[in-house]
């Protein structure tokens, strides 16, 4: 049994999630090797090899300077062949989820995505947008597994390692990287707000945001936010979105109204100092990260709370 860790470079460094994969490989047990992909990344690979990566293959090629699905697919397959690994670990990031299923299909391998734990020999992941957990077993053959960033503490030690150059044929790559566009400046900067009152799909109607959610935010002297479905539906502009693809916030108080708590939202607000959740569904995952919860109708609770806050402030 042997594992291959596919690392990822972000802003010129091996990202933290790659060290989490080291910890995950150690948790699974058995031998492991690593792969660093990029251009001019020999030093990064050497450093990673000595910080837990073990034997580290280096796919170093000018054509791999920026992520492209076809080139990375070829590099990972080459490393699987060279290492003989039967478990391939990839971080579940935008590049990881782009390429990992292709590797699985090319190798006719099993695929298990976005796992956050390895328990009783099974991989554990969320399904139904966080409402249920599933334990999934790998069959006897090769398995590609993507791991949720932040789910496991990164390996922080040092160990003996070595590097080995890996030759990769990227001549068949069709996808061409053009550029990366950084996020546009936000009209609404939630990152500085001390109090955020956010509404989700449970608010039900775009008109209810100015009528119900904004007044509570105003009464508390805070800002209004929203979850992804609200923005996708066009009820509020993207600048209000809290979550992995929106703004990551850490206010002193976060009030989640009608937000069930899909993982992409939780990633954006779970670092808040204190979280209050108001939701009619007692099983909503938001109650797992909240310190204080109300199972009830937000249209009763929120206006009454707004009135009480306004009265208390006199």
């Amino acid at each position: 049994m042997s594992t291959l860790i596919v690392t990822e470079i972000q802003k010129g460094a091996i990202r933290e999630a790659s060290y989490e994969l080291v910890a995950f490989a150690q948790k699974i047990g058995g031998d492991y090797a690593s792969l660093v992909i990029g251009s001019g990344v020999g030093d990064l690979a050497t450093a990673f090899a000595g910080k837990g990566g073990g034997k580290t293959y280096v796919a170093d090629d000018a054509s791999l300077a920026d992520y492209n699905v076809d080139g990375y697919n070829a590099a990972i397959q080459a490393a699987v062949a060279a290492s003989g690994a039967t478990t391939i670990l990839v971080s579940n990031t935008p590049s990881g989820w782009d390429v990992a299923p292709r590797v699985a299909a090319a190798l006719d391998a099993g695929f298990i995505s976005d796992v956050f734990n390895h328990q009783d020999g099974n991989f554990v992941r969320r399904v139904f947008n966080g409402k249920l957990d599933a334990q999934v077993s790998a069959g006897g053959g090769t398995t590609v597994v993507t791991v949720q960033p932040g789910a496991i503490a990164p390996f922080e030690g040092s160990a003996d390692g070595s590097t080995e150059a890996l030759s990769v044929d990227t001549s068949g790559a069709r996808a061409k990287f053009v550029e990366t566009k950084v996020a546009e400046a936000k009209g609404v900067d939630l990152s500085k707000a001390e109090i955020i009152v956010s509404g989700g799909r449970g608010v039900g109607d775009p008109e209810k945001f100015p009528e119900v959610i904004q007044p509570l935010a105003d009464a508390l002297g805070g800002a209004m936010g929203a979850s992804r479905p609200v923005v996708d539906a066009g009820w509020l502009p993207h600048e209000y979105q809290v979550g992995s693809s929106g703004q990551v916030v850490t206010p002193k108080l976060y009030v989640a109204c009608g937000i069930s708590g899909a993982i992409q939202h939780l990633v954006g607000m779970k670092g808040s100092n204190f979280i209050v959740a108001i939701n009619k569904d007692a099983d909503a995952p938001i109650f797992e990260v909240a310190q204080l919860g109300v199972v009830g109708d937000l249209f009763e609770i929120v206006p009454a709370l707004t009135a009480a806050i306004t009265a208390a402030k006199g």
Partner: protein
Amino acid sequence: MKILVALKQVPHQDARLDVNGDGTWIKEDGIKFEINSYDTYALEEALRIKDAGEAEVVVISIGPDRVTQALRTALGMGADRAVHVNDDALVGSDSLGIAKTLAAIGKEESPDLVFMGLMSDDGNASAVPPMVAELMGLTSATGVLKAELSDGNVRVERELEGGALEVVDLPTPALLAVQSGLNQVRYASLKGIMAAKKKPIDVKTAADLGVADAVGSGGAKVKIEKVYQPPKGDGAELLEGSTDEIVTGLVNKIKELGLL
């Protein structure tokens, strides 16, 4: 131009989820189903290309009889015809089995573009679209928030973390797995729904597609051992009582935090 759209019918997002008897999935009896939310954006993107020029939009789906409803909805929105893989042999398939089935249809159809949703609202795997691309020999992009077609090329913007975007050129044919929110999805018009009744739905089995050995629990390379409610952590302290009592509790807590 021919555009293929694969869509999945999933439990309604507000459906009550109870674990089934053997603890490996949910009970499907008596719950409402809908088209997977990401897939509605995929279909809309294909229909916009059709609206802007000339394209045939073919929708494909896998599942039991209830899936006919989802395909009729898609046809009502403007798709031209449908392929429905309706075969109990597919029950228990893993992502790769599903991808092989869709890819078999894809190879028969040879589309210029394939649109799918980034993930499904039930399995949340984000697995099938890149697999289908690999099996069909197409290049692909996931998390697509914008797609611009020009002669033989599609320029896409992929969503990265924190709202950044990656711009990529893909030669067609290509497969795009779309992120939610890239367009505003239309509703089926009454006229569209009436017209959909005359549009063909071609029903196929795994054997028709030559994938019988790759599908079902027998073909699956990974297996769901059990599903269950996530273990409750410390969780939230719940405020109960009348609205007044709850509001008083909330105000007291906000005061305690020094925010009032």
